[in-house]
């Protein structure tokens, strides 16, 4: 396909919130100040901030990080200074930059998730992301996101606690992700994001010990991309909600794959740990890819894949 290269219209809208482009950060891989030392974070469609809980969490013991073939394991365990600190110390600076902010929310119980949602509901945060898929905490997290009944219960409760657009972040550690997606949709989610990390582990055979202090951790990076893409595809068939797709996106063409699979926007996570400027670089590459391929806007790209078409 050859066409005149003009700048595509990158704007998208999710749940009524306008984004200047479809690229955001994945929760837990972005820090406003530190990431902002490497690139202008205002270039992104939105920024998704690290999970916050009602009170400060200490996270897991170190080592929390292990490298794996084509990816990494993390068992950070949602260390965070708590929602009050986020609201008073982090959010005002972000909002003063004029970026669209998605706040990721963590909790051990339905009540804790509600509490965070209520507090963030009164702030300038643009969207909320409910993290019911963290594999690294003992209570809460993926314990909710791997059970359709518990998913519905927590989503329904948080839905009532806030009027903000509610994104529910899904776990890949399930047999049927479509079932969980439908449970979240029926319970009042406005948007779904997926995938969170895949539960994995490593052993150091020479030192005869577990590589992560937590034992298990969440696998992310290019190694998980085919799984993530397949799940976005499945969820696209299962629900009507907008989807933020993520999992091993390292290039503009990776992002295009997710958009073609049915995502409305994409998030960059591990790539930003490997290369701090990755979210901005991937956005640029996606825009260049769309221009080269003659797409005028994101909708055209999303509709480009004819039902089940194979590459020939």
């Amino acid at each position: 396909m050859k066409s005149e290269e003009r700048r595509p219209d990158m704007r998208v809208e999710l749940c009524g919130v306008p984004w200047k482009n479809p690229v955001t950060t994945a929760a837990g891989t972005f820090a406003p100040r530190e990431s902002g030392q490497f690139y202008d974070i205002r270039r992104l469609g939105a920024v998704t901030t690290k999970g916050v809980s009602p009170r400060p969490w200490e996270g897991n013991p170190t080592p929390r990080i292990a490298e794996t073939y084509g990816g990494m394991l993390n068992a950070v365990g949602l260390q965070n200074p708590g929602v009050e600190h986020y609201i008073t110390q982090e959010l005002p600076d972000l909002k003063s930059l004029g970026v669209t902010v998605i706040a990721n929310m963590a909790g051990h119980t339905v009540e804790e998730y509600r509490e965070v949602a209520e507090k963030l509901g009164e702030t300038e945060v643009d969207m909320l992301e409910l993290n019911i898929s963290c594999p690294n905490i003992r209570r809460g997290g993926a314990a909710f996101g791997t059970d359709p009944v518990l998913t519905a219960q927590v989503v329904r409760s948080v839905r009532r606690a806030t009027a903000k657009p509610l994104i529910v972040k899904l776990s890949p550690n399930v047999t049927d992700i479509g079932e969980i997606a439908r449970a979240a949709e029926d319970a009042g989610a406005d948007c779904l994001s997926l995938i969170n990390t895949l539960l994995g582990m490593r052993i150091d055979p020479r030192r005869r010990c577990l590589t992560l202090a937590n034992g298990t951790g969440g696998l992310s990076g290019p190694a998980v991309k085919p799984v993530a893409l397949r799940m976005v595809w499945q969820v696209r068939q299962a629900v009507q909600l907008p989807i933020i797709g993520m999992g091993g996106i390292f290039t503009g063409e990776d992002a295009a794959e997710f958009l073609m699979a049915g995502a409305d926007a994409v998030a960059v996570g591990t790539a930003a740990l490997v290369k701090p400027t990755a979210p901005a670089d991937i956005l640029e590459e996606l825009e260049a890819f769309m221009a080269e391929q003659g797409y005028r806007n994101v909708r055209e790209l999303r509709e480009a894949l004819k039902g089940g078409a194979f590459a020939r």
Partner: protein
Amino acid sequence: MEKKIITGTIEQNLTISPGIQSLKLGGPEIAESLKAFRPGRFVNVYLEDKAMLLPRPLSICRIEKGRLQLVFKVAGEGTAALARRQSGEKLRLSTPLGQGFQIENAKGRAALIGGGVGAAPLVGLAEALHKQGVQTTAVLGFQDQPFLTDLMQEFCHQVLVATDSGAAGFCGDAVELFQKAAVEADCFFACGPRPMLKALAACCADTPLQVSLEERMGCGYGACVGCTVRVWEPAEPGRRVIGLKKVCADGPVFSGQEVVWDEE
């Protein structure tokens, strides 16, 4: 932008002791990045290998005439691959990261205590202290073969060496030698294995001590919260609470009195 990913040219890649590598990098981007150097800061080095994605955070040993010298231990596949890189090859790395040693107020006498490859950042530190007119004693401990001691001699008033094997200098570790030699100073700086730093913190509680910590890192710039250290933070008067800091972004240098040592 304040920080960047840059490309340097390998000018020298030498094994200076078994398992210890010295890598000298040059080029215009390296020269430009050196203004952000402070002793104790580190750089992320990228391997360009899709199987090994994470950056390797490596100590800056010193800077010299527009060149950056990194000294690291070959600890696994990634550092082994780096040790095989040839002169003339390009290497992608970050500009200096982390907070270095605070030396603005250092005067009089200083003692630098290093364990193994922990000697690396102490070289640049000794050089900076030397320029400031501080009289420096270095106490360096090694398993068997000492390294970087010649360079330290250039900047230190005195260099004391200990080896676990007894192959050179005092037979024992750096802290034992430090105590035996009764090194006196107005401020202490240390880099080495955590048990060494802990022992040091216990035996010099009355003197300002700065320690450079090591921790397994993910991003190396403060985004992933993978490398955490527990620190004492002041609460209301007379009380202190345990807080968490990032080794990569808040450190790697911390006050020895600030680190919570008694947890393992």
